[in-house]
């Protein structure tokens, strides 16, 4: 059997990026940037998650079927968030309908 063997240096590089990402998130959290705090925080978290998925979980070298399954998982998560928030974010738009 022959899965793709990535060099050790790649794993250390990804690890370093994850630690730097963590340090950045903590630093950014102490500065008040208003709504940008959430954007940066989640942006860094998504980048870190992507690094773990692509390199540590070997999705970068996986088949298209695996890509599809992984992407569909996050797609369904976005449907969950998206459709639920269309309810909560629009409550009160029509007078007298709150709760």
């Amino acid at each position, binding site marked *: 059997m022959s899965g793709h063997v990535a060099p050790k240096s790649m794993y250390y590089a990804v*690890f370093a990026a994850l630690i730097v990402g*963590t340090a950045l998130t903590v630093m950014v959290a102490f500065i008040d940037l208003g709504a940008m705090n959430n954007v940066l925080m989640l942006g860094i978290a998504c980048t870190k998650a992507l690094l773990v998925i692509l390199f540590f979980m070997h999705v970068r070298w996986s088949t298209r079927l695996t890509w599809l399954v992984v992407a569909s998982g996050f797609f369904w998560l976005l449907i969950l968030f998206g459709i639920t928030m269309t309810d909560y974010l629009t409550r009160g738009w029509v007078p007298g309908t709150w709760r």
Partner: protein
Amino acid sequence: MAIQPAGHAHAPHHPWLQHHFDNMEQQAEASTLGMWVFLVTEIMFFGGLFMAYLVYRHQSPTGFQEASHHLNVYWGTANTAILIISSLTMALAVRAAQTSQPARTQVIWLLSTIFFGLCFLGIKAIEYTDKFRDHIVPGPYFQWEGLYPKPAEQFYSLYFAMTGLHALHMIIGIGIMSVIAFMASRKTFDSEYYTPVEVAGLYWHFVDIVWIYLFPLLYLIGRHYHAG
């Protein structure tokens, strides 16, 4: 025609190849895909809690900031780093099996992963103890000094549900790693067959990813909050 006995009355093959697969590649591919399908259900499982977090935080953003302010950012950051280290040792354990390194090397990486997993849970236990001592565990004895007691109780309900479910996954992961480490010590894995290490690694990394989101959403949203 003689009836074939259920067994190995046919061409030789790798001892770990199941009969319903053509070859080791196909078997590995099927296992990996199966694990990913399970992880997709896990995404939705945790997703429900993230959804609840989003709704309640949207209803009381300031209350959540005040509640988050009481979490210990040092323990949170330390645990994030520990979990990332454990993911690295996990990835190196998979690589060790994949490149036919000696059983000893594989076991060392797997035991390191278990060790860092236990460190994480130890810190979590310290944090939980602090919360019980300070009466910020939701329920009849919940006490909140701040301006937003109700959202704070909601925040800590979510905190315990999410970190608790995550910790349960860590405990299960440590159990899985113990089995994998035992198998590795019996010289089970080499470049021909390392699927169990790979698949267990997928689970471990997934649990790491959940924490990557939990950490900023729980610990960091209240860092610049000032009461009043």
